């Protein structure tokens, strides 16, 4: 994963994924193996049975945030990926 650009801003990425330990473990592994600069991380039930919502905040430019999202998008067990790109929603998501 390329180094974030000099003018990073906060992006919140929300990943809906299977509520299975092995899937969650794999998702955390993606953050580590792709060297994603995360600042906050939260895991909650999504409201749908068998599904979790993994939310993390990264300080990076939009292109890097998109590349990170794509790495999750192709992961087995991931159902959807959203990038919520503004400081306000970031604050909400990390709380």
């Amino acid at each position: 994963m390329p180094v974030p650009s000099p003018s990073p801003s906060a992006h919140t990425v929300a990943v809906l994924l299977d509520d299975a330990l092995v899937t969650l473990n794999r998702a955390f592994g993606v953050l580590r193996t792709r060297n994603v600069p995360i600042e906050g991380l939260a895991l909650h039930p999504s409201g749908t049975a068998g599904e979790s919502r993994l939310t993390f905040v990264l300080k990076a430019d939009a292109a890097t945030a998109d590349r990170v999202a794509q790495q999750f998008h192709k992961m087995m067990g991931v159902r959807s990926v959203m990038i919520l790109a503004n400081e306000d929603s970031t604050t909400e998501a990390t709380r």
Partner: protein
Amino acid sequence: MSEMLSGAEILCRALVDGGVEVIFGYPGGAIMPFYHALPDHPRLRHILVRHEQAAAHAADGYARASGRVGVCVATSGPGATNLVTGLAAAHMDNSPVVAITGQVSRPMIGRDAFQETDIIGITLPITKKNYLVQDVTELAGVVADAMAVAVEGRPGPVLIDVPKDVQNQKIEYGAPQARARGQSRPQTPGASPGLEDGVHKAARLIAGAERPLIMVGHGVILAQAYAEVRALAEKTGIPVITTLLGISAFPDGHPLHLGMPGMHGEVHVNRAIQHADVIIGIGLRFDDRVTGNTASFAPQARIIHIDLDRAEIGKNVPVAVGIVGDARDITRRLLAAVEPRRCERWLEHIRGFVRTRAESYRGGLSPEAILASIYEASHGDCTIVTDVGQHQMWVAKLYPYQHPNSHITSGGLGAMGFAVPAAMGVHLARPSGTVWAISGDGGFQMNMAEMATMVQEGLPVKMAVFNNGYLGMVRQWQQFFHEKRYSCTPIWSPDYVKLAEAYGIPGYRVKDASELAETVGQANTQPGPALVEFMIEQEANVFPMIPPGGSLSEPIETAPAGATGD
């Protein structure tokens, strides 16, 4: 009709139902119920390897040569961990491998039981998906899902960990279940949003280009897009570059074929990249061994990147147009959208970059001559499997590939020891063809125990060992970048001819080019395995070379001053 079956029997049936014919494996405590059931399923031919790493590499070789899933089996603990290098190689090179491992019984998991290891945790980053089967009722569905996940979209390895008590669990077993776990979300090739728009943008860029290039990678082989890529090149006159894993996707010797790019690419290939104004990349990931320093890679080029994996677009190099989809489908669309054109001035320009390489050999035993003898002996019709190092680069640059997917190597991981076991898998996928495993003296010694597998299982692999008495590629780096301090790179070898004889295999040693044709010809016509050792120049180098992290514009073409070989 249903019957009571054990998990082990279900596992065998599910493999048969999945179309599996060959399994590479090694038995042990936690996988014994599976091995107990196996003889009742004669359609599953089991190849007993001498080390589980070889089982994974062989399954990988089988998968690459056949386009079907390669299956390997190991016990828990050391059996499972020995698979890891092979799975990592399959992961990096997108090879559909399914690994089945035994695990300690469920009540023992987490208690540090004998031969217990968390193979799920260990293989998370090197598998597309992995499963710990918690109940026998899941088993058939898991196997079906694993077989599908391994091949669909961008292929890759999958691991199934089956506790011993699950293998022994009995249930009433009916018709084969469909993929029980429906959550997998296959990556859909083909029509992605904006695809036609991308194709038309690409066609416009190509129409306006003065110095265009096509770069093809492994994706072209995986998608079998040979005819489409060739038609695109011939319709537009655009020269074609093949990456290490793209070799054989385009015929060597075709007037539009330039060769391999990157760290050991020929000068004219890299110069072409540095001068190009448009690059059409098909099914490659612009790996660092291809690009050198990305900051100075193709500075004038606008890049059109076609890849099945959306995450590859823009990952390593910025792209002007990214098109997500199957290489064959997209290339076909692009072919229809481009206008016929020629690139004669550009080709002439590139011809002006061509250099002759400065190299030294003894006894006339140049890599060219050795590879030419293999080509002649096999009438240009064999599969070459290479290991990792200097010989791998010589083969990549010098072997005149004519047939698609006839070059197999460990590219992304660069795993020494790959060639010999992977070639066993290639033979089983292509039993009527000839397969040569080409290794250096370092890599060959890593998995040479597999000669016993070849003898026991009747696998007629031809083995070539390039013996220079060194771990040659590392020695070359030491010569160029570490003041010629040959630290721990001289490597002793046994007498390979006697070693081959000990295994009951014909062994040959070639010291001079005059012996090549006859000896290689004899080895090639042996009905079973054969080994040929080539005594090559000790300090031969692979030229040219882009220094690690360097720019493609600045190749090393001769040994640096003060670092020349004796």
